[in-house]
């Protein structure tokens, strides 16, 4: 597969929360606004790209019996770096995301990509894979966050959208709203991909 292919597969074929259905904990918890979703996505992307690169560079040195431990150390180090950087330069975002930043360590997407891809492929392909999957994750979270923010608080990116007296559907920014929104998105994505598959099959026959 070409490098571009490694990159684009993360945007649709294996877009993390919708197709792999991985990393749902932050997906459900932080998407109360588009900004939070995007911030979380970018932090995860940074960790994913860095850990993919390092895992791929070290893949021939790390003995396979201790590979998971080694991956976790690498991932955890990058997460702590992200956490310190966020505290230093984007404190309000750090406060909004809270406990979910340290929890990037146990995000299945990152360990999953390290194990399934970076541990078997070269550094350039691994960076492309990390960028693609990370960007897919960021876009998913931002879109999901925007959807919930528009309905739940009547704003987008903190700006009011509706007329005065609009009663926001607060349910959507609460925890149950996260499940409902994710369910709707999963259904929509499945519907679209079923349609696409159908068309492909018909074109072939």
């Amino acid at each position, binding site marked *: 597969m070409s490098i571009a292919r490694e990159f684009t597969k993360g945007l649709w074929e294996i877009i993390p929360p919708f197709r792999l259905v991985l990393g749902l904990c932050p997906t459900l918890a932080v998407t109360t606004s588009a900004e939070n979703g995007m911030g979380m996505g970018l932090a995860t992307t940074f960790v994913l790209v860095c850990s993919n690169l390092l895992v791929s560079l*070290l893949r021939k*040195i*790390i*003995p396979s*019996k*201790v590979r998971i*431990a*080694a991956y976790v*150390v*690498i991932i*955890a*180090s990058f997460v*702590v*770096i992200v956490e*310190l*950087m966020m*505290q*230093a*330069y984007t*404190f*309000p975002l750090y*406060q909004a995301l809270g406990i979910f930043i340290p929890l990037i360590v146990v995000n299945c997407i990152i360990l999953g990509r390290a194990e399934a891809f970076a541990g078997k492929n070269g550094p350039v392909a691994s960076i492309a894979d990390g960028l693609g999957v990370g960007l897919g994750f960021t876009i998913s979270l931002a879109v999901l966050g925007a959807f919930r923010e528009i309905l739940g608080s009547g704003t987008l990116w903190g700006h009011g959208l509706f007329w005065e007296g609009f009663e926001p559907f607060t349910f959507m920014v609460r925890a149950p709203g996260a499940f409902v929104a994710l369910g709707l998105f999963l259904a929509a994505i499945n519907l679209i991909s079923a349609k696409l598959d159908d068309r492909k099959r018909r074109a072939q026959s």
Partner: protein
Amino acid sequence: MRDILKMLVVLTAICAVSGFLLALVHDVTREPIEYSRLKFVKEPAVKAVLKGYQNDPIKDRLSILVGKDKKGKPVNLIVFPAKKDGKTFAVAFESSAAGYHGDIGVMLGVDLAGKKLTGISIVSHTETPGLGARITETNFTDSFKDKPMDKELAVGDINALSGATLSTKGVVAAINNAQATLNKYRDKMVQ
């Protein structure tokens, strides 16, 4: 045997390198983290009590050693100076005293030349909601404005809250504690 040795060496090396890297990042970000913590947590209170300054009080903050806690760790008082034309004309710092339920933390601004309060803001408290918690309301805190800082403040001097005598007394006591602090460390605050 060789396998086990290799595992040990590789894992130890990875941990050592990442430990070193983290120590480095921690060192670099320590200053900005302290700054942004103060900026987002304390700045609103500092802005409420100091007016007319041209500097960044958070950036120019002073740490004054005021003693040690029970474990022997040094306790620092953080002072936010307000400067005009490079000279400190007022300072803001925190003071606390017991209210009805737990300590009340008060950020207060002091005009150094006039020896009077420029304003106060309640930064932390656990008073009863609806009663003692009214100490955060502006018609209470505004009554501290321009009160002298060179003689003891009494409850009668300010707009005391009815039904929240102990909370009111707590805030007044915090101001009086601050007077003692001011007298003791005044020279260090204006450097």
